[in-house]
Structures are given as structure tokens and as C-alpha cells.
């Protein structure tokens, strides 16, 4: 096998290696006459990334036999790319024969220096291959990298997992900007409920997909997916560098999500490379009350979700007091985070004295229900309530109240997002730290 590349192709290749190195440890090369595929699977088997290149991506593309396959350590490949790309004239990758023990990476620099790296091939490569049909995902959206960057900037940079909740963009009449109906997508920081020392920043962001996304498709009940931020950020950097939009395909909690670059108007036909990142998502939906006998959270491997291999689970410590789960949501800062550009904080605290439009909202809440039939257990409010600044020590009563709302209607938003008027009987510090965000909006109408 012999490949040679330079200029922009070399930059894209270098970016691919960087992204792959942020996902997994081992890089698998699969070269055939039709394409070169690089892929990696992380050690937890919860993230799989592949980048494929067509032969015309390269200056030289020569494959001796029908298919060449080998695997190397990504760290070693990253050493090759320590040399600044701007100083490299050409990179040639050579594998002398399909059974060769080393791959040669030869860099010719503009200065005249020639660097040849020989990287040892792994003797027993763990070659997994995963391909998901993009058409099987019911929902998807396309977002520009800089827009997604801007949205993610609202979250704590060290946040390990994030939840995306996709709902159907409502067709109800809008009561202008404050109407929640326009904010069909929510991004929410996922916080491990079993973590004892929780001093991290919790963030929720409701966005209007028509303003933030290039394209958004979701019909039916709300779905949520919770997945790792690390690989998302790696892929975001990759797409940003390649100047392509990010296409994210999702199904529902527990099913993997797929991210791919979105080239131009038609899907990838103009581009000579493509990429796919498959991330496992948490089994437990953030929208539902979970079955308490199951672990509060469990992440599955993508293989299980793709139905090929045994599942690995992370068993949560279920002995944790369940009300901690809800309390974390109420530890938000006193003032709602406000950022412009169509991202607005949803008013979640409904004051006692409701004006007309507020009452209309309450009625909407009453008509909502979850789609889940799971029995509502008093002690496990899996969907937290969002009360800004209100510390709720005992929440069981509130949970029960919410469960009554759940009974009827289709939910667009989980009713636990809303603090029912009844619930204020629990709190004694209603006015303290509570952001009366509703009145300004509603009064302006």
C-alpha cells in the first residue's frame, strides 16, 4: 500500500488523526481499491469513530492486493504529526506488503529535511467495524460548528456528559418571544446522581432550532439522549477545521447517536472524504421516571445498541437517596442564565398571582402527560424539577403532585419541568432566590 498526500488533504488527514486520537487508542487501517478507512473504538466501547477517504483524496493511492488491513497505536501516529503541518510538503504512507510489521510514514519538509517514521503494527489487532444506516434514525439536526460551540460554551468545560432533548416544534400559536413553543430543543448538563460531592455547574439551555440549527427534524414524542462530551468536542473541532456543518442523528435514550459532517446540499457526494462518530447513550431517559429496581443510570456499549455484542454496564449506586436527584436541580444559581441569540431561559417558576397568559400555560401543563407507563414511584423522581434557587429538601410530596399531572394527554415537555401551583405549599422560601422570570415576559405581551 502506498499513499501520498499534501496541502489541504494533508491538513484534513492531520485533523482526522487528531480527532481519532481523542476517541480511541488504536487506529485501524483498512485500504481497498475503493476507499481508505481509518477507525477507532474507545476502550469503554462507547465511542466509535471512522474516517473514510476516496482514492482521489490522495496524490498517490496504490493498493497491491484487494484489501490491506493493519492497526497501529494512535499515539505513535500523533508523533508523526508533531511536525507543524505548514512546514510539510508531502506525506507518504507505505506498507511494503500486507503482512509487513511496520508502516512507514515519510515526511518531506519544505526546509529539505526528510523524516521517516516506522511504526510497528499491532500484532493482534482488535478490528471492529461498525456501520449504521443513517436512514434508521427518526430524528436529526444540522448545526454549524461555531453555533454549537457557542451553545456548549454555556456549559461547564469539564462537563462529562450532556443530554439533548428533542421535541416537536410546536404549531401552537405563538404568544411572542416568551412562548416556550419555539424552544423545541433542550440541552442539559447531565450530572451523575450518585456523585456525592456535587459542586459543579448545572446548565439547561432551551433553544429554538429554527434559529440555532441549519436543519431540524423531529416528530412525535420528546426523546432525549445522554452521551459523552469529550468525543462530541473532538468531532466539533474536526468539523470546524474542515469547515463543514455537523449532522447529528438521534433516536432515543439507549440508542446510539451518529454524527457526521454535512457537506453542501447533497449528502457527501461532492466530498472525497467522510466521517462518522457513533456514541452510545445512556439507557435511562432523563424525561421518564425510571423503574427503581433498575440502576438509576446505565450506559450501554454501542455494540449492544447496534445489536452485535454483549453489553457493558456501569451499575450506579442505587442506594443513594433518590431525592438527591431532584435536589441537584434546585441548586442552580439564583438568577437564570441569559444569553442572547434566541436562547432563552424557560420560565419555570409560576408565581401565585397568575395573569391570563400564565394561566394558559398552567392549563397546557395539565394537559400534558408523559408517554411512559412506568409506575410512578414516590421515591424516584427521575425527572427533576427545575426550580431556580429553591432548595427542596423533601421532594416526595412534590413528586406525587407531578405524577397526577402526568396522567393525561401527550407531553411535549415533561410536566416536571413545571412547578405546579400546588407545589408551592412545600416551599417556604418562594420569594427568596426565585427568579420571577415569567412576569417580565408575560407582562410585555
Amino acid at each position, binding site marked *: 500500500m502506498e499513499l501520498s498526500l499534501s496541502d489541504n488533504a494533508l491538513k484534513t488527514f492531520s485533523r482526522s488523526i487528531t480527532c481519532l486520537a481523542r476517541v480511541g487508542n488504536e487506529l485501524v487501517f483498512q485500504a481497498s481499491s475503493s476507499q481508505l478507512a481509518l477507525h477507532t473504538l474507545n476502550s469503554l466501547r462507547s465511542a466509535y469513530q471512522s474516517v473514510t477517504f476516496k482514492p482521489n483524496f490522495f496524490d498517490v493511492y496504490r493498493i497491491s492486493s484487494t484489501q490491506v488491513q493493519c492497526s497501529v497505536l494512535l499515539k505513535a501516529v500523533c508523533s508523526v504529526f508533531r*511536525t507543524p503541518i505548514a512546514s510539510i510538503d508531502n506525506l507518504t504512507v507505505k506498507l511494503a506488503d500486507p503482512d509487513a510489521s511496520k508502516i512507514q510514514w515519510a515526511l518531506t519538509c519544505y526546509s*529539505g*529535511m*526528510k*523524516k*521517516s517514521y516506522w511504526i510497528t503494527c499491532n500484532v493482534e489487532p482488535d478490528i471492529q467495524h461498525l456501520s449504521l444506516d443513517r436512514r434508521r434514525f427518526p430524528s436529526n439536526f444540522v448545526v454549524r460548528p461555531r453555533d454549537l460551540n457557542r451553545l456548549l460554551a454555556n456549559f461547564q468545560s469539564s462537563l462529562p456528559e450532556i443530554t439533548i432533548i428533542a421535541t416537536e416544534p410546536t404549531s401552537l400559536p405563538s404568544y411572542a418571544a416568551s412562548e416556550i413553543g419555539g424552544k423545541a430543543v433542550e440541552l442539559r448538563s447531565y450530572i451523575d446522581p450518585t456523585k456525592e460531592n456535587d459542586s459543579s455547574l448545572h446548565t439547561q439551555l432551551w433553544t429554538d432550532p429554527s434559529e440555532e440549527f441549519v436543519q431540524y427534524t423531529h416528530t412525535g414524542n420528546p426523546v432525549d439522549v445522554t452521551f459523552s462530551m469529550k468525543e462530541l468536542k473532538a468531532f466539533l473541532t474536526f468539523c470546524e477545521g474542515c469547515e463543514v456543518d455537523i449532522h447529528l442523528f438521534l433516536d432515543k435514550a439507549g440508542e446510539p447517536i451518529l454524527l457526521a459532517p454535512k457537506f453542501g446540499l447533497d449528502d457527501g457526494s461532492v466530498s472525497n472524504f467522510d466521517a462518522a462518530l457513533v456514541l452510545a447513550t445512556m439507557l435511562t431517559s432523563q424525561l421518564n421516571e425510571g423503574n427503581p429496581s433498575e440502576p438509576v443510570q446505565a450506559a450501554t456499549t454501542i455494540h449492544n445498541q447496534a445489536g452485535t455484542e454483549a453489553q457493558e454496564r456501569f451499575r450506579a449506586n442505587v442506594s443513594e437517596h433518590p431525592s438527591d436527584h431532584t435536589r441537584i436541580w434546585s441548586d442552580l444559581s439564583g438568577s437564570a442564565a441569559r444569553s442572547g441569540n434566541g436562547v432563552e431561559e424557560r420560565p419555570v417558576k409560576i408565581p401565585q398571582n397568575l395573569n391570563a397568559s400564565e394561566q394558559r400555560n398552567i392549563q397546557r401543563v395539565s394537559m400534558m402527560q408523559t408517554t411512559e407507563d412506568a409506575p410512578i414511584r414516590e421515591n424516584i423522581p427521575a425527572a427533576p424539577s427545575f426550580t431556580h434557587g429553591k432548595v427542596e429538601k423533601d421532594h416526595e410530596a412534590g413528586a406525587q403532585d407531578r405524577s397526577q399531572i402526568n396522567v393525561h394527554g401527550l407531553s411535549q415537555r415533561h410536566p416536571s419541568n413545571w412547578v405546579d401551583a400546588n407545589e408551592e405549599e412545600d416551599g417556604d422560601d418562594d420569594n427568596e432566590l426565585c427568579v420571577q422570570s415569567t412576569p417580565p415576559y408575560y407582562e410585555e405581551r
Partner: protein
Amino acid sequence: MSSSAVEAEAPDLVCQLDSVQGMVDALSAVRWKRHQDAVVELSEHGVVLIVEDTGCLQAKVYLQRELFVRYEYNAEGRPRFGVSLGLFVDCLNSFSAPGRSSSIQIQYPGPDMQLLLKSVDSHDACIYAEIRTRIPDTISWDYNFEPAGGTPLTFTVKVLYSLGVIISAALKEAIDDLEWPGSSIQIIVQPDPPCVTFKGEGHGDLQIDFTYYVNTDLVIAFHCDHRVSYRYKYKFLRAITSNLPSSVIKDNRGSKLSIGRGGMLKVQHLVSVARAAAASHPHVDSAGHQQPSRIAYIEFFVKSEVDENN
């Protein structure tokens, strides 16, 4: 100056330097460890500072008398003393301040055999320092390249086997890259194609070639009669370029590589010790090269691991 009225002897050396930063740059180039004991040798030609590591690596800094604004040498013979290199450089650093004249006067010996430093021409403050010195250990080896049949020379060398002059920045980049493969680096110089090759083998292999083309600025000069190949420990090669002053990179200087008898590797750097305002110096030409008197010579000697040559 004199220690007492009774002994009216002049000190061995009183010299004045108009740019401390240059001297700091030159001396820093031979720092590769936190604690290094240096031997300083004074002569009528200038000052030489020598550091050594485990008998396999030696570095010398030559500060010729022409670099100094004033150089009064009164000793008989060549006085030598030992001083801590880190301490000396840190002390010199304290004299240099940006935007201020940093002339200093260095005198040896003080009343107690110290090295005395004093700031000069500073209107608002006077900085004064004394550094304790010690009797130096004899240097275990003092390598001089020997021309065939000639007497050893100390300040000039004649190359025996082969040489190449490689751009210092590129040499540094190559040695940084060679960190990946492993601990033993092979250097091969061959006449056809005219090339200096660095090769490291370990959990992976890396080979870096510097080929002599007439039209590139990577290898400035090249001379080789027959192929030579020797191995050197990576950590010693690393010491050669790890603290190269940025002025060397900026001035686009070349480093001279020579391999002599027994595989002894010699690398010579040129470090400018001129003042920062040298742009107005009348002798600076367009390429940034200055008169030789404004350049300090740094030499590294590395013993090879195994004599593979023939």
C-alpha cells in the same frame, strides 16, 4: 580593585561587558542540568567556561577578549577556578534589565578568591555581587581535535573526518523529534548522496535526513570523504540543543557538526552576544551577521557509544 595597600597586585582579570544578556545567552546554551559545576579558565585570549557530564559530554563556551569593552589581564599563566554554572547565570541575569544599560564589570579574584561583579554606568543604583569559587577538579578529558601530525590547538580546530553545517533550528527540531524512538541515536555521514542522517530505533523507528543540495539553506556546508557511522546517547544529543538561545534561531545561524577520531562528535554553535540595539550597529550586514568579535563560540563534545566505523 586591590585588596589592600600592602599587596599592590592587580587582579588577574578585570573586564567589562556591555551586554549581560549576550553572556547569559551564551552560558545558558550549555545548561542541561539543574546543578552543574563549571570550570572557568582565564587567559590573555579570553574566558573559557567548561562543563562536563559523566565523562561522555563536554561543553565549552569561548568568550574572546574582543567581546569585552575592556579586558585587562594581569595573571601569569592561566588561572582556573570552579563555579556553579546555574548560580553564575542567575547572578548575571539579575544584572540585566530590559530597557536599561546593562554593562557590568567582572573581576577575579576578589580578596577571598571570589568572582566579583559590579554594575557600571547605572545612574540610580549599583548592583554588586560576589560568587564563591573553588579549586577545580582536573577535567577528566580535554578533547582537542588533532590535525594529522599537528600540535593540539585550543581555540581553533581543524576537522579530521567530516563535517556538515546544518541550520541550528533544524538541528534542534530533529533532536526534539528523536525523543520518540529511543535512547540511542545513530549519526551517519556519507558522501554519496551527501547526507547527514540521524537514526533512532526503539518502539518505533525514526530517520531524519539532511541532504546537501546546493540550493537549499538547510545544509550550508558539507565535507565527507567516506561514510562514517557512530551511536550516541540521546540524552547527550539532547543537551546540545535543548537550551539554544532564541537569538540563534532568529539569526538563522548554522551549527557545525564534525565527527572526529574515534567517533567523537563535535557540535559548534554561534551565539550573538551583541546588545539588543545591534540593529543600529554599523557592522551588521543585511543577513544579520556580525563581526566575529561579537560572537561567542559554544562547543559540545560527545563521545560515541561504540566505534562502528570500519
